[in-house]
């Protein structure tokens, strides 16, 4: 078992009223799963993903990640945990504009304090694997959206995470580019990476092995 959410609640107080963003979420994710979180706008999909990714906290409940109780961890240990095991892919790619493709890929390794030679090898390997060796010295602005997302996925993968969290990874892409990215995810999944994606598209959800439906913060 990779992670487990037990009775997770998350709310905000607004004008004396408590508005629930997540309500009693119970979710167990096994290694090797490919889960799609679906639901209408505002149903809490991204919030759930952020909670899983430890970027956001919650108000009640338990979260265990690889036998660590995330809800009891200190900020720094939590950061170490997701640095080690989780890679993020965003809808708007979120590459660092000032860095080239190669340097963007290198960034997570720098934060993990991987040694120089090893780092170079890993970056070269990743460029090779994603077929973007020719683009390694370009800046994000010089790439198409699909290529940027490709780099985004490559960056998420480079530190060998167990889990990839993707928040509408194809939201800004055309259908052909979307298909390529989804095929890539599927392939990664077969190689053993666990993937959780948030998506609006039934077609994309179909790539996954399981669908979690959310409505107003509840799983249905």
């Amino acid at each position: 078992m990779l992670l487990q959410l037990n009775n997770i609640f998350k709310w905000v107080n607004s004008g004396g009223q408590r508005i629930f963003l997540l309500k009693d979420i119970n979710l167990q994710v096994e290694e090797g799963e490919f889960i799609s979180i679906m639901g209408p706008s505002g149903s809490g999909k991204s919030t759930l993903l952020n909670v899983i990714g430890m970027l956001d906290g919650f108000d009640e409940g338990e979260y265990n990640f690889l036998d660590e109780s995330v809800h009891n961890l200190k900020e720094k240990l939590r950061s170490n945990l997701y640095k080690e095991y989780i890679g993020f892919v965003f809808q708007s790619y979120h590459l660092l504009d000032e860095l080239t493709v190669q340097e963007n890929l290198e960034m997570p390794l720098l934060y993990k304090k991987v040694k120089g030679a090893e780092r170079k090898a890993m970056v070269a390997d990743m460029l090779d694997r994603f077929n973007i060796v020719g683009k390694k010295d370009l800046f994000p602005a010089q790439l198409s959206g699909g290529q940027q997302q490709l780099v985004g996925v490559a960056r998420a993968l480079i530190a060998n995470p167990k889990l990839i969290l993707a928040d509408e990874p194809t939201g800004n892409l055309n259908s052909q580019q979307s298909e390529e990215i989804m095929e890539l995810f599927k392939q990664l999944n077969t190689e053993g990476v666990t993937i959780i994606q948030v998506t609006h598209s039934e077609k994309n959800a179909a790539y996954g092995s399981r669908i979690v439906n959310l409505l107003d913060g509840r799983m249905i």
Partner: protein
Amino acid sequence: MFKNYLKIAFRNLFKRKGHSFLNIGGLSIGMATTILIGMWVYDELSYNKDFENYNEIAQVMQTQTFNGEIKTESNQPMQLAPVLRNDYGDYFKHVVTSTFTFDMLLTAVENKISYSGFFSEPGVTEMLSLKMLQGTRDGLQDPSSILLSKTAALSLFGTVDAVGETIKVGSASNLLVSGVYEDLPENNSFSNLKFIAPWEFLKKNQDYENRVGWGNNWFQTFVQIQDGVNMSVASAAIKNSKLENLDAESGMAKQKPVIQLHPMAKWHLYSRFENGINTGGTIDRVWLLGIIGVIILLLACINFMNLNTAQSVKRAKEVGIRKTIGSVKYQLIFQFMIESFVVVCIAFTVSLVLVILAQSTFNEVTNKSLSIPWSSYNFWIVSVLFIAITSLISGSYPSFYLSSFKPIKVLKGTFNRKEGVVPLRKVLVVFQFAISTTLIIGTITIYRQMNYVQNRPLGYNKEGMLYVPITTKDILERFETVREEILRSQDIANVAASDVLVTGTFTTNSGFDWKGKDPDFAEEFNTLRATHDFGEMINWEIKEGRGFSREYKSDSLAFVLNETAVAYMGLKNPIGEYVQWGDSGKFKVIGVVKDMVTRSPYSAVKPTIFTLHYGRFLNFINIKVKPNRSPKEALSHIEGIFKKYNPERTFSYTFLDEEYQQYFTGEARMGKLISFFAILAILISCLGIFGLSAFIAEQRFKEIGIRKVLGASVYSIWKLLSKDFLLLVMISCIIAIPVGYYYMNEWIQDFNYRATLSWWIFAAAVFGSLLTTFLTISVQSIKAAIAKPVKSLRTE
């Protein structure tokens, strides 16, 4: 990782060129100013430190009480040094009497050049650790010898190998050059000492032995204390060394002379004495400038912080991404610190260039010769510290602020721009402008005070007056002939000789007695000895009685007093009263003149006595050129006559106006410096708000577009963008007014004759600040206001 940070830093710099330019520009101006001030402060603090015996040398000071007024001066009678040597010898290694430094004409066989120097006792060479190029430090033992500096030797003989040559000092007999010393460095009290002649020679030559006593405070006395002796102990021990040697009933004893030592370390910056106690001096000015330097640097750092936090929106996304791919807060802090470090390093390099460019102007204003000490280790150590501190100050806030962003907030785009930082940014702007406005107030006040003093009615007329110093007896002996010949020219109105100039009656005398004088009254008068016609020449205004006249032979024993003197002496009907002046005789008061400003125009008029004199005290020949006549022709006429009667001398003259202007050089220098800094402070602050307003206009680009579509005018948009800044500047003015008033009020109290701090000074400063802000912001806000709305709406 470090390399990566540097890379990002440089790419960010190049990407936002305008922003980087403002950032580096502002910071480097601030740093350059601080470096200049730092060099100046260092120079001031290292004054005299080149002397090996820096910690042992002292000047002997004398404190006297004149009618309740306590004065401490370096003037000493020549009798003091022997007393210190004989009775207090255990304390001192050397005790020397010296004259004050003055200009003397040195004549070698062919060359004659005027140089400054003094007559001193032999010990002075050891005391000042003179570096002898030729001869030895014993060179002054022989009273017919003289020591020359390298400069003097070179210009007189064309070589430093001058030992054995003879030169004439003034019109006195030949002295044998017994040594040549390396010129003393510029940054010390003896830097203009180009020759040292033996005191014994002067004493004999001028017959001092027979004519000067304990009352003639004409000389200075220097000591070097014995090893292991405490300076303050020695100073306390010699306290009564003069008083012990005076007749207890004499006028001099009533002046209660107290002797003390003033250590060399304090000569330059702690030269002020109040009530006989050393209370400070120009160290105040060092502090003031030092503080201004730090403040200007701080202003520049504030700009940096402001501009960088304003960029936070642009950097927020980056922070978010970095956090999600694993960066911890401290790594981000480190990254932003490195970025500010890079900027500071570039700014430092630019500032060194600025310093080199500004150096000569700065030196002119400060009357120094400063330059960057490239080869000094300390300079580089200080520079590294300086860069580190500046990066820390300017980088700390942006780093902590930026690195604290929550990733999901900034990545979702719900990042609230107005969060937190705005109030602090406002506070910083207020701080900057409060300082700039205070400096403007200071500048205006200083210039106004100078102008006010410069226009002070003097009570005499110096127009067309010039003087020629009397350097030899020849002229004096033939004064009447010289006078008549000068007067032969149509251009000359009048000629008279005097002991001091009317612009500076520095001679003081005591030992006067008159009817009704309180026996305990220890008086001190300024005295001016002159030949006939002097009064008419300066156009003094006679209030009672008459001036000196050739018709009355008895006028050789007559006084003319100024109004202050009459009041000082308590005379009801001064005309016809008699005043006894020591052994010189009984003088009849024949006239009273209106007060004239014959000393510093900043201070009150002193009691002054004018008397006729045709003897050896005369030092200057004053000549008045008729108005509307060309001074050039008059001068060539005068020069001819001086050449005739004194062919050995180079003819030199000075207009009294120039002499008078010297009172203003110090204040003019201060005024220039302060205005220079005020301009810099404003420039830096304006760069800051220029950047900020650009940022705000950019941030509100879309809003402005929407407003324009809805029908807003250019004016209303300009108002929208400008009013916040103008409000901030107004707040800073409200702070600056009391602060400026407090400091300038303190400053102006130092002057006896002073302008009032009127309201318009503050109004002008406020107006100036508002106007510059207004212009700076308008550039940005008008640009934003006239942009086509379609453009701004399409960008989203």
